[in-house]
């Protein structure tokens, strides 16, 4: 583990946004924030928290309630595996893993998106899929007698995603 990973999260030099918790609580996946009692069951069960001290879901919930917006919306929530172990284990139904999606959505609107995720969004707009076959795979499909992969109706998808503002969120031209 590197030195930087061991250091405490940078709480002191950040401004507190007292509205953050309310904003999160009013998103469809963020309601759980109001139920958290900081017992630590989520972090104690979290497979990612065991890999790196940079990720601590209980602390993330605490940071939301305190209003440490900068930390909350930086790269921290992207460590989550979306394995939902915390949701399964939480004794209060605070649905931590769901709250993570709420804050990722807020982060995305503020422009904090990891490149890999942004690429997935771009792929969807361009091809309707996040993963597309290579030429050799297409050949192999033929060889195996598997049906052809139909292209998605990207025009339709673009209509949907323009309507929701998805293209703007990922900065797609």
């Amino acid at each position: 583990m590197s030195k930087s990973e061991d250091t405490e999260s940078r709480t002191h030099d950040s401004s507190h946004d007292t509205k953050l918790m309310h904003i999160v609580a009013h998103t469809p996946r963020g309601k759980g924030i109001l139920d958290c009692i900081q017992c630590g069951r989520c972090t104690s069960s979290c497979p990612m928290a065991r890999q790196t001290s940079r990720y601590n879901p209980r602390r993330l919930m605490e940071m939301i309630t305190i209003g440490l917006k900068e930390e909350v919306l930086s790269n921290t929530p992207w460590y989550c595996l979306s394995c939902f172990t915390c949701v399964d284990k939480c004794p209060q139904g605070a649905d931590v893993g769901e709250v993570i999606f709420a804050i990722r959505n807020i982060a995305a609107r503020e422009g904090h998106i990891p490149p890999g995720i942004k690429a997935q969004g771009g792929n969807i707009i361009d091809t309707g899929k996040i993963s597309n076959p290579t030429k050799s795979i297409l050949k192999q499909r033929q060889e195996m007698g598997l049906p052809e992969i139909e292209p998605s109706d990207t025009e339709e998808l673009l209509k949907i995603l323009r309507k929701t503002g998805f293209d703007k969120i990922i900065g797609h031209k």
Partner: protein
Amino acid sequence: MKDSKSVLVVGGGIAGIQASLDAADRGFKVYLVEKTPSIGGRMAQLDKTFPTMDCSICILAPKMAECYRHSNITLLTYSEVQDAKGSIGNFEVAVLKKARHVKEDKCVGCGICTEKCPVKVPNEFEMGLADRKAIYMPFPQAVPRLTTIDEENCLFFQKGTCRVCEKLCEAGAIDFDEKPEEIVLNVDAIILATGFDVFNPKAITAYGYGKYKNVITAMELERLICASGPTDGYILRPSDGKEPESVVFIQCVGSRDQRYNPYCSSICCKYAIKDAVLIREHHPEIDTYVFYIDLRAFGKGFQEFANRSKEEYGINYIRSNPGEIREDPITQDLTIWYEDTLTRTIKPLTVGLVVLCTASIPRPDNKKLSELIGVELDDLGFFRASHDIDHPVDLTVPGVYGCGFCLGPRVGDIPHSVMQAGAAVARMSEELAGMEEA
């Protein structure tokens, strides 16, 4: 017209015992109904009581004996309420006295029958950590002091063979032909004191109870730590009978948990402190840890006791709700993964024994009693008070009262159960006296 007022008390634990004694001393004719073969309840199973560390059975046993002796108390053990009708001043209650197959007036409690009975079954009083026989006395201080044949396991009742106890009993107390008997009682009032059950932590699979032998419940630990228990008070692991190097207590197992029991059971923090201290007293070499969410040591003398447990006994307190327990298949040691929420560190702790402080939950019998008597249950399954603040021991039918943990996790400890018993008797006297005046 009856000469004196009478009351039916349901449940022979500390709350029911105290209510019976208080009512009997006031001149009430008391019928104390208990479904198991002996009165005593949970308190009889405990080693010490918190925070004074008094010997539990030493306080309880004299009260049990007094119940037996008191001329105003009729003990109906191994009995259950079957039916109830009427109202305050005139309840008619049918009680089924189950067949014990041992005559109360003949058995002297010598124990020869138990000694020679060939059938072994898990001992409920010892939380399954030891065996009992099919003919048995639940525990040495049992009241009444006589044995009972458990039909479900007795070779005679199951296969028509054996009858060893009958051959050996010099008192001639064994009666295989005894039939259950229904008794109809006329009483002025009813006091319910059905106590609590222990939440089965198997539901929380991540803790491995039932799968890992060295994960036990706090009630099981009470028997392990008790000098008259299956290990004579030595802390020995169920897996190998060896002393663990360290013991962990985990709080809020099934309580303060929206999926199981949303409430705080109100006693676990306190008994965990007590048990951790007892372990250190019995085995100063064993390290003890208490994992807690909030250490709720409220009440007279408790915070002081918690402080002493840290300072004098070196108990380690960790603010965390652990995520999972894993067993080393070879050593059968247990590794607990947890975040210390005060230092934000995530780490494993490997220990020899884990004690789960499980929720105290309503007895399933409450439902039947509520249907028979007409008293309401609250959303959790405990008896609902007619008014939580004004009349906290009155139930929702006039003339029916409650005391002890069956009212829910108020302050579910022994002193408060005793207080509530007194309060229930006082309220009953008051209301019945009011009826006479009217």
